[in-house]
């Protein structure tokens, strides 16, 4: 979070190559060992519309796409018309004179017209010309771009490479001659980062956890997880299936997990709604499964390409009745990677469903990552599970059901009873979505016995105590004594941290942060220890109804002093939080709903 960051905005239509240009820049930054975060604001249409990619890079860690644009690259007139007015003094606006008429910039904004036609006759290379120009202005040696272009077009042959490199060099040189570069050229750190999206991290985390069965029905913004698994399926020996709907996804998960595979799926809110009945069934049958809900703006189809934290209560209320479950949120690609194996270890220990709440911001966001931090060798703990190889010599392979030699649902103090997978001799049993006895026999098959029903219900719910002990409580970040304590969950971690730094730096205000990663089970005690001492608690969330605020209150009784909410589809930016905290500290309001200026 240094002042040394640079922010590039690229705007145009879907299908105009914004993603490609962004990717080239990202790879260059990564190779130079620069941190970066990219956020793409786009529409749910395949071509056309308006897309705006923001790429922020810095020598120090960056957690958000920042608050401003230093260099605006306009790929169409629309971008010029919409965004020029938000450009501030010191910034530059690059555009192709062939198709774009500049507007009137504010004082101190540098207009950089690029005559692409004069540089290359191939209209398709206008983006490449512009990329070259951007590189030059960032003070990056041309060789980086040349290298990337060479890799990118390797398959298309030398002529194409040469043409692209020529165009890029043309833009590079033209910018050198005609435009004022940024005062501080982007450094090179000697490190080398990778480029990763949150969805890729979730998928890789799954692979690291030992997922052998990935099941999907495509749904934005979760589809990236499927795409990764599909690509690596054969190499890693992972069964990847695309099903007819999300109901079959969740139920297939149960079959695969019962067989003994670590099985996972990812969807968004609408697909999750269709899976809720199955999650309850998994809990009743005591089969560990993991489902990811990458939240997008709802309700219903909502805004498929926009972010929101609107599915917390859906996860809390998923399916009929009470059952043990774990719900955990992720806040970044690295966190996503680490969370998947942790959650698998937890649910395989406690035999219940685990739900990961991600959102579009984390999942589709692109960021730099230190590849060494993606640890594929972390612990895999399978919990109490019996495979054929573990089955002790049994009097009969057909034993289990009839002699009650093995009780799948044995009542234990922890609520957990060892599970045997089909194929294991001597452990025959039935797992049922109906209430059942210790041996799996439906209680309605003998007699609907209230005492047995109660005992089994309590057995299952007891797992919540064990799970709570097994997970890490949230910790206060920042100064112990502060004017305000910001509380958030999931994807707001980054923006809250940056806002806190900004508040301290620019306003001299001490603000700290409690990030709640684990939503179920909930660390009521630890959280109240922090909040009861806080001077002013402000909850930050992407939800119109304050889903987290209400949930926090349901678990603690604690009513926050203030709320900062955003539900227009775009994520918080640090300055939104800074302004909101200031107005709340000034006593002007207890509910701030920042206005999103950048993409309107």
């Amino acid at each position, binding site marked *: 979070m240094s002042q040394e960051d640079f922010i590039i905005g690229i705007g145009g239509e879907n299908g105009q190559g914004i993603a490609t240009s962004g990717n080239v820049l990202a790879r260059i930054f990564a190779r130079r060992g620069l941190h970066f975060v990219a956020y793409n604001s786009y529409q749910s249409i395949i071509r056309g519309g308006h897309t705006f990619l923001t790429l922020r890079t810095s020598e120090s860690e960056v957690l958000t796409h920042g608050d401003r644009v230093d260099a605006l690259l306009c790929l169409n007139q629309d971008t010029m018309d919409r965004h020029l007015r938000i450009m501030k003094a010191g910034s530059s606006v690059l555009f192709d004179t062939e198709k774009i008429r500049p507007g009137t910039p504010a004082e101190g904004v540098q207009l950089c017209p690029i005559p692409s036609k004069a540089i290359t006759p191939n209209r398709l290379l206008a983006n490449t010309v512009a990329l070259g120009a951007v590189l030059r202005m960032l003070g990056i040696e041309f060789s980086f771009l040349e290298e990337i272009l060479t890799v990118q077009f390797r398959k298309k042959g030398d002529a194409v490479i040469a043409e692209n490199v020529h165009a890029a060099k043309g833009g590079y040189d033209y910018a050198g001659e005609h435009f004022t570069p940024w005062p501080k050229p982007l450094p090179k750190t000697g490190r080398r980062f990778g480029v990763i999206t949150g969805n890729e991290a979730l998928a890789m985390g799954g692979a690291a956890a030992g997922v052998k069965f990935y099941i999907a029905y495509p749904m934005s913004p979760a589809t990236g997880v499927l795409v990764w698994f599909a690509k690596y399926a054969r190499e890693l020996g992972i069964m990847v299936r695309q099903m007819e709907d999300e109901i*079959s996804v969740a139920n297939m998960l149960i*079959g695969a997990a019962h*067989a*003994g595979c670590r099985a996972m799926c990812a969807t968004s809110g609408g697909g999750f709604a269709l899976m809720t009945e199955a999650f309850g069934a998994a809990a009743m049958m005591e089969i560990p499964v993991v489902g990811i809900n990458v939240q997008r703006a709802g309700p219903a189809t909502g805004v498929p390409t926009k972010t929101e934290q609107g599915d917390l209560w859906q996860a809390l209320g998923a399916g009929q009745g009470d059952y043990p479950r774990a719900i955990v949120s992720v806040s970044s690609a690295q966190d996503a990677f680490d969370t998947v194996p942790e959650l698998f270890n937890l649910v395989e220990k406690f035999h219940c469903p685990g739900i990961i709440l991600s959102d579009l911001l984390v999942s589709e966001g692109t960021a730099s990552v230190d590849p060494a931090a993606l640890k594929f060798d972390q612990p895999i703990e399978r919990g109490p599970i019996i495979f054929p190889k573990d089955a002790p010599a049994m009097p009969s392979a057909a034993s289990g059901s009839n002699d009650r030699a093995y009780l799948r649902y044995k009542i234990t103090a922890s609520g957990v009873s060892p599970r045997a997978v089909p194929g294991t001799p001597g452990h025959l049993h039935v797992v049922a979505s109906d209430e059942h006895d210790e041996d799996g026999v439906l209680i309605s098959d003998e007699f609907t016995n209230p005492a047995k029903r109660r005992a089994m219900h309590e057995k299952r719910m007891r797992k919540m105590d064990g799970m709570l002990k097994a997970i890490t409580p949230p910790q206060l970040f920042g100064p112990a004594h502060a004017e305000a304590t910001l509380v958030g969950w999931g994807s707001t971690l980054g923006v809250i941290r940056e806002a806190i730094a900004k508040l301290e730096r620019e306003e001299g205000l001490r603000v700290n942060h409690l990030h709640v990663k684990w939503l179920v089970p909930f660390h009521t005690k630890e959280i109240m220890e922090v909040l009861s001492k806080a001077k002013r608690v402000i909850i930050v969330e992407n939800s119109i109804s304050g889903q987290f605020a209400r949930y926090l209150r349901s678990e603690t009784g604690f009513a926050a002093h203030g709320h900062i909410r955003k539900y227009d589809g775009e994520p918080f930016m640090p300055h939104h939080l800074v302004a909101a905290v200031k107005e709340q500290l000034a006593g002007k309001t207890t509910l701030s709903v920042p206005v999103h200026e950048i993409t309107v």
Partner: protein
Amino acid sequence: MSAAPTPASAPTTTKDFKHRIHPDWCPGCGDFSVLAALQTALGELNLAPHHVAVVSGIGCSSNLPGYINCYGMHTLHGRPLPVSAGLRLANHEVTVIAVGGDGDGYGIGSAHFLHTARRNINLTYIVMDNQIYGLTTGQTSPTSVKGMKTKSTPFGNVESPIMPVPLAIVAGATYVARGYSAKQKHLVSLIKGAIQHKGFALVDVFSPCVTFNKDNTYVWFNKRIKMLEDLGHDPTDFHAAMERGYQWGDEIPIGLFWKRDDLPSLEESEPILAEGGPLAYREVRVPPAKAEAIRKSLL
């Protein structure tokens, strides 16, 4: 990888599949016979109980897994097929038999039925088709015929029924048979054929609900049932299979309508299952070299 069922190391018999729990079906319910036929088929095929899993949905018929001595899953209403497919693909050494009712399979589960069939997943699917919703005490089912009076259609059903046999054939099932509870031996042979078949096999069974279906009773069926063998049916003849599948009236055929062996099952098409045994038993950790390659791909 072999798609053939794993035989037991020690010989098994029907008795090995008997369960101590007595079914709570109504006396005379057709499902008793289906249970017995399945137990006999498994015994005759000499399968080991621990290598067999019976997976059901919800309904009277779906209580079956609780009455047979092997692995069992009693899942949600309408969902036995995706659960079975997950189980089978995760462990293709286990013989997976999906069972359930007509409402479960052709109503709420009909999308899964279509798609599991077209994927030709190596499962046996036994539908106890009593043309009624039994467990919910007698409403119209997708196979209830037009005019039938039930609790939900007291003035007579106005909808045409689904025809399971033609539907299964068109959906892509590669073994399509129909049995009848009152012809248990015949049913045993259909089930054995289904289990031995490498692909998706449907055995639709007329399994009368003696409590709620007063139209399609044993007496009613006994008069109409004809064996396809006796009708000279050729199960590789598509048009004949369709014709026979549609037949409903004075003559209602049972037997093997359709069988094809030229399509690979899904597990045969999945290279990752070609060797290494069941997925469920394999090493879960990504080998260090592969992990390194994945990390490198990000650079």
